[in-house]
């Protein structure tokens, strides 16, 4: 079949007004259905004619999926809340600013105006072989084109690669994991809640999916507990272009410092592996330590133990080391006299 791109194939479109209706439709259409949130990831697949769902279920009309609610000092963010709405939310800004920072660094203003927090955490890998329609492991094939002697894999994984070397590109995911967020998933049978760090799934377990969502599942909300409200946060994203670019790597940390010592901490890195990585070994090592450069450096070195670079992504080792360091001891800003 000759290949042609850039014209969306026809599909049946449903715009349910309630979550219940949406779940009913998902249940009815099973794996034929494609869930459309903001659509920024979906339309690429559809316009490239690589994915051809029979049915598209557009969640845009479901009011209950949208908005930020304060719950017990924490937040419940509807999955269809746009990134801009998250960024501009006063409580997010005040108590959980790391999420605002991360979300604001995603993509471009127009994308943030339409792209949703649920979509941002559930987005697919951006490996250019995979997105180019090459039939790789992630696409159900039997090869990883990005890890071959001639592959160009500058943006790919240095950790936990298993056949597939793609990375998770989300900017809000590491912030959410640092905040100990929980994902609320509903399907026709009921609701389940998973920790943000368990929401993502690596290729070793499921090579064709990025998250634990199964056909019929809907991410309906993200809950942020009060636990880390007002903690010390650090978020940094390194990217090639200062807008509309995926992270070469990003880091998020939430920290409670007491008397100069790190009392509580969560550190998360993304674009290093197929899932955002919570660095528990680093957390354990720095807990109780003074928050200073030495601790940061130790943490950085520890973070990259076991990392395996590919031909073109060796820079990700020092990058991850330095970002983890900064996430713990901060960045030394220049003092130009």
């Amino acid at each position, binding site marked *: 079949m000759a290949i042609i791109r*850039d014209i*969306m*194939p*026809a*599909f*049946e*479109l*449903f*715009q*349910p*007004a*309630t979550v219940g*209706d949406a779940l*009913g*439709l998902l249940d009815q259409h099973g794996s034929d259905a494609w869930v*459309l949130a903001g*659509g*920024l990831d979906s*339309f*690429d697949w*559809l*316009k490239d004619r690589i994915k051809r769902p029979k*049915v*598209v279920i*557009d969640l*845009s*009309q479901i*009011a209950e999926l949208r908005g930020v609610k304060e719950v017990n000092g924490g937040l419940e963010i509807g999955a269809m809340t746009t990134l*801009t709405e998250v960024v501009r939310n006063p409580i997010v800004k005040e108590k959980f600013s790391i999420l605002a920072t991360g979300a604001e660094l995603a*993509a*471009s*203003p*127009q*994308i943030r*105006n*339409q792209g949703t927090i649920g979509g941002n955490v559930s987005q697919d890998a951006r490996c250019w072989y995979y997105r180019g329609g090459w039939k790789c492991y992630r696409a159900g094939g039997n090869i990883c084109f990005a890890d071959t002697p001639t592959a160009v894999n500058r943006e790919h994984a240095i950790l936990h690669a298993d056949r597939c070397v793609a990375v998770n590109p989300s900017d809000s995911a590491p912030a959410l994991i640092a905040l100990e967020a929980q994902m609320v998933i509903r399907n026709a049978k009921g609701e389940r809640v998973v920790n943000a760090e368990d929401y993502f799934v690596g290729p070793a377990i499921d090579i064709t999916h990025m998250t634990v969502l199964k056909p019929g599942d809907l991410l309906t909300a993200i809950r942020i507990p009060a636990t880390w409200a007002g903690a010390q946060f650090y978020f940094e994203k390194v990217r090639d272009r*200062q*807008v*509309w670019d995926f992270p070469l790597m990003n880091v998020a940390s939430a920290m409670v410092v007491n008397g100069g010592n790190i009392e509580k901490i969560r550190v998360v890195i993304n674009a290093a592996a197929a899932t955002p990585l919570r660095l528990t070994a680093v957390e354990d090592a720095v807990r109780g330590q003074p928050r200073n450069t030495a601790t940061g450096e130790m943490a950085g070195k520890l973070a990259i133990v076991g990392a395996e670079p590919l031909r073109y992504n060796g820079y990700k080792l020092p990058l991850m080391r330095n970002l983890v360091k900064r996430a713990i001891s901060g960045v030394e800003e220049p003092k130009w006299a």
Partner: protein
Amino acid sequence: MAEKNNMEEAPKGISRRSAIKGVIAAGAVSSSGAYLFRTSTVRAQQSAAGSVERLVTLNVNGQQRRVDVMKQETLNTTLRYKLGLTGSKLGCDRSECGACTVLIDDVPHYSCSILTHTTRGKNIVSIEGLEANGKLHPVQQGVVDEQGFQCAFCMPGFVMATVGFLKVNPSPTRAELAHGVSGNLCRCQDYDKILTALMKGAENLRKVS
């Protein structure tokens, strides 16, 4: 051109399951111009019960426009090929360049990357809708004042992004405005002059409002 029709604004948020389960016959609306992306003669797109109806009313530039819209149709296609509004350009069709930017309920969106059906019941403003009473919008006037832009293929998108951004931040610094329009690409790379022109536009807008 599509007929103007004030009668049938699609109610927002109605459960489609409970809505009328009508299958609109293909070709029923042939008034929407000849340049249709599969809307009429070739192959009827079957509608399943409960799915969206193809005949919709859109609020574009303050007018109610009745139009036959394919399920997979993007707003940009509808504007350009069905409503004759070719001011919104298609530069990449992948939400990367911003040339297609329009305002939907005052918020800048890439019209190439939103389904027309998603915009039912919302106020859509394209570059053609900025002029009022034969006068350029202050932001447009800023561009004229400063001879902003070169080839100007990106211009409608930049102007719309600016108009949207200024609704949130009417007095931006140069750097803030640059962030505001950073979802738009100019390949003539005339960013400096563009920014000067848009800053002038912001100034013009502050004067009139």
